[in-house]
């Protein structure tokens, strides 16, 4: 549950810095990958429907 993450950003980061950077970049790349997949599905749908 997100509420357990308190206090919001006050807690100190744990673990090595490279791990934090990797997690951050993974998140953004994953978001873009989902968006790209959605783009392909939507484009396929558009060509089929229209």
């Amino acid at each position, binding site marked *: 549950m*997100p509420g357990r*993450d308190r206090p919001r*950003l006050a807690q100190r980061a744990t673990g090595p810095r490279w791990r934090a950077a990797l997690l951050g970049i993974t998140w953004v790349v994953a978001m873009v990958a989902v968006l790209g997949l959605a783009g392909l599905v939507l484009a396929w749908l558009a060509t089929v429907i229209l």
Partner: protein
Amino acid sequence: MLVAPTSHDLQVVLRTAGVALGWFSAAMAALAGLALSVGDVNTATAIAVGAAPGLILGVMARQLPSDRPVTWTLGMVAAVATWGGCAVVGSVPLWLSGHYVGYHHALFDAISGITNTGLTLVADLDHLARPLIAFRALLELAGGFAFVVVATALFAAPTALESSLAGGSQRAERVLPRTGRVLRRARLLLGGLFGIGVVVVATMMLVAGVPVATLAWHAVSIAAAAATTGGFAPQSDGMAAYHSAGVEAATIVLMVGAATSLGVWVMASRGRFRAILHDLDARVFAGSLLVTLASIVFGLARAGTFDTVAPLARHGLFLTVAAATTTGLSTVDPVVLVNDYGTLAPAAMVAAMTIGGMFASMASGVGALRVGLLGKGVVTDMRELLRPEGAVTRQSWWRLGERELVTDAHIRSAATIVALALAAILAGAMALLWTDPTIDLRVALFSATSAVTNTGLDMPALRPDLGVAVTLGHAALMLLGRLQWLAVFAAGGFLFAALRGHR
């Protein structure tokens, strides 16, 4: 009673803005050295001429006392002074380059760079000196970095929405202690995005066949444009010049990263993905991306622009991200966008530009969070209509892993900014229609939205023959949009109080 600012207040503003201008000018001086090292004496001189007054002002500002507290209002006034000062200093090398019809166009371009808009009125872009391309990248990097710091530390305004975002800041609170941590995080984020971006984009460009002699200039320019949502491309063909899906994919990741707020980046780097999925800001941004993508893809298919899956998905995805992150890099020529892309796709881009990226990211627009809070307000009103008289309706929202209640003050604060942005878009469109009877309403609205939301996607309305009034009017709209109105209100109030207040 209106109280005039004291000489101490003025010293705080001058020192804060002067030191920031000094750092910017120092970076310009370093770039002048780079231009000299590649044998471009003219550009090196032009950049040095611009940097000199900024450096002098920066050194003078350091002599002012530094023990005075920087309050919210003074920080805002200093932010406006910094952006204005950097734009004036930055316009000098552009003007001296000889690529502009007049000084007002050079100033427009400098403001476009420092506000991360990406619109340009440069004549003969394809033959711009390479150090000047790097200078545009410097403007974007400086503007993006300063915006994240200002947005996170200072846009934590005394109004209700921003106050709750900052964890209850007050007008009189010193902002500098918080700024130190924000500065470190912003430096890490921008440095990381830009550094990785240059390497990945350069690799993709090398694969795409960009000549090695120009590779570094192009990679730095495109990485800076994407990693700061600046959106300036060093060729008139924009991203289409590279003919590379790899370059576009790398750019898309950078643009999404730049439109992600510092807070969400911190949560992601700590593995708190579930909290991000609940975050209102992240949800509205993701929703804006998906709805825009669907609208653009179906719009392009319906207009008959593309009839196969691959180009439809590729162009649709790039334009979606370029608009929703307010970056403005484009894979399509502005004239083609007007003539061949139908109506639905550009309309979806206008909506996405207006919403913009996450709150306090490098993206502009009104901010996904404000739109989300407005939506919450509509739902609250509807629930109150349906429930028995006297029943209390409460809505909550998630922000950085913490639940907060939606208040009337939140909604009023969000609605004010949204209304001001929409009014500015209409005013900008009207100005274009007044001055150029040949353009239609669609083009005028698209171009004005692009300027107000600091996107930089262009329909052919802003051209090198644009008149002085419209040029400076759009430059002012870019500044207003970037400084999120509040800063300009604070600066206007400061000036008014200085002139009319009681001493």
